[in-house]
């Protein structure tokens, strides 16, 4: 019985972790390429989740799900371009860390409260197209919705890796991330790369937001939590490291679920920060980053 509960918790942790990975990948990509630490990142997830809320009320069952995810990626991708152009791009030539972080905090306050104005304060839940069906494997069971959530995050992460490793644009993004000036010398238009990266990173958060909405309630103030988690995961994996962010997400998801169950539910949200402080003290370049 005990070991089955443990297994159950680990499965839940992996599912949660896959969502963290997806959102953190967006953050770490944007940081890697543009050196922007965006404290409004989780609000892209919030917007994505609301896109799903409205589309699912509109489209039936499966169609609603697939439609929501595509629409969330599109809407948040466009929002990403708009915010990058209006808010971050003007600072690109003369920024300091303080300016970038401050302007993103301004964006966070703005988006959160605009959402409050438009969507109202009532928390909402996403519909389950499987009608709450459970997937039972004997040792553990989980809802089909959660399995879908896990499978979808993993597919999205794999597609992203393929895009970054195999396509011309993906290679351009990685090159800019490694060395901006060398990339420019090779004829890469880094302004296009910046816009594309920001939009893609935001879209990842948006899609992550839809999946996050299957696990937690959706509200205008929900954005702060994914932002915090994404930063913890990103720093754990080494800022700008893709693989670190993927692994970090799973580690955080499992650590939180186990900690929440065996240590204290009330301090579940503190677990990530404890890990963060430990990582920063012991391995400041991240668990998977290169030692400096």
């Amino acid at each position, binding site marked *: 019985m005990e070991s089955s509960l443990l297994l159950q918790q680990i499965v839940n942790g992996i599912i949660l972790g896959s969502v963290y990975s997806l959102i953190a990948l967006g953050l770490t990509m944007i*940081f890697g390429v543009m050196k922007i*630490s965006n*404290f409004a990142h989780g609000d892209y997830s919030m917007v994505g989740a609301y896109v799903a809320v409205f589309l699912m009320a509109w489209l039936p069952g499966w169609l609603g799900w697939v439609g929501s995810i595509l629409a969330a990626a599109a809407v948040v991708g466009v929002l990403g371009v708009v915010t990058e152009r209006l*808010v971050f791009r*003007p*600072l690109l030539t003369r920024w*300091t*860390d*303080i*300016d970038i*972080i*401050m*302007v993103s*905090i*301004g*964006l*966070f*306050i*703005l*988006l*959160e*409260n*605009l959402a*409050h*104005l438009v969507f109202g304060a009532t928390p909402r839940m996403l519909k389950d197209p499987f009608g709450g069906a459970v997937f039972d494997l004997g040792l553990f069971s989980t809802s089909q919705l959660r399995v879908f959530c896990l499978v979808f995050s993993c597919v999205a992460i794999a597609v992203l890796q393929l895009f970054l490793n195999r396509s011309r644009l993906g290679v351009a993004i990685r090159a800019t991330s490694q060395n901006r000036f060398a990339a420019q010398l090779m004829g890469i238009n880094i302004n296009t790369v910046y816009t594309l990266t920001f939009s893609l990173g935001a879209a990842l958060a948006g899609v992550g937001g839809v999946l996050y909405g299957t696990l937690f309630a959706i509200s205008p103030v929900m954005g*702060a939590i994914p932002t*915090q988690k994404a*930063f*913890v995961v990103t*720093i754990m994996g080494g*800022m700008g490291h893709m693989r670190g962010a993927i692994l970090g997400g799973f580690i955080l998801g499992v650590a939180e679920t186990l900690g929440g169950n065996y240590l204290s539910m*009330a*301090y579940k*949200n*503190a677990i*990530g*920060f*404890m890990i*963060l*402080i430990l990582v*920063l*003290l012991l391995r*400041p370049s991240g668990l998977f980053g290169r030692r400096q």
Partner: protein
Amino acid sequence: MDARSWRAIAPWAGLAALVVLPLVLRDRYLVHLLVMAGIFVILSSSWNLLAGYTGQLNLGHAAFYGIGAYTSALLAIKLGISPWLGLVLGGLVAACFGLLLGVPALRLSGPYLAITTIGFAEILRLVAMNWVDLTRGSLGLYGIPPLTPIPLPGGKSLTFTSEVSAYYVILVLCLLSLACCRRLVNSDFGISARSLRDDEMAAASVGIDVNAYKLAIFMLSAFFAGLAGAFFAHYQRLVSPDTLSTAETFTILTMVMLGGLGTLTGPVVGAVVLTFLAEGLRFVEDWVKMDVRLIIYGLLLILTILFMRGGMVGLFDRFRRPAAQPGRE
């Protein structure tokens, strides 16, 4: 009168105006707003001390405010310690936590420091929420005694329950902490601190003990926030875990950026303007039937950083001395 004698008189005239202000206003609510503005003057000035003069971005400043408030409130409720002593103790305990956070923060900068300090405040907020035996959790501590009356010769005593009396206390606290900031910034110590903000390695190479400076200012910044928190506890007589929230920190930093980061007057201007703007916006909200206050905060913060670097103080300086602005024809 010539400019020099004006400059000599101006501070005293300003002080006199501040002293008679609540007597002229004669409106309890307006005086209450002045008291709140005073609390935010201390909070934003102390945050600015760290961010504006050493370049360290602490996004957990509200934690120190909350620590000061809880410390003084608990000491008064549980141990019956005088709130006056509590003001100092609240500041000192906050400074100890400042040391605790400041040591790991020495190795961090930019986003690393920002998220660590958010985490620090978040963990403390969770403690305040969940240690129900001590803090009464999300209900908050209530029934906190006000500042104790001071006996005057002749059998009377000076009480501190009214808004006007609280105004004079916070005025004194503001003036003390601002004087302290001013002396610090203009001293050799302050010059060294600024040098490490602008170029840490260069500062270290001329023999400035970078870590000692950062720690000292971290603790001092925490002390003043704790002091403001302790005063707030005995003024509001209710402390809840919300005092430690990130939203509180974000209000403080909006004030500083709006007023002018890295200047002495900026945080003061920002705190007063934003406190009264918030109240003005409440009327607008009643009128348009929408919650627009925080949307405007967010817009203000973004627009200030994009178009008004140096904040209102910077704008004023540019207006007054356009030629002195480098890089401008």
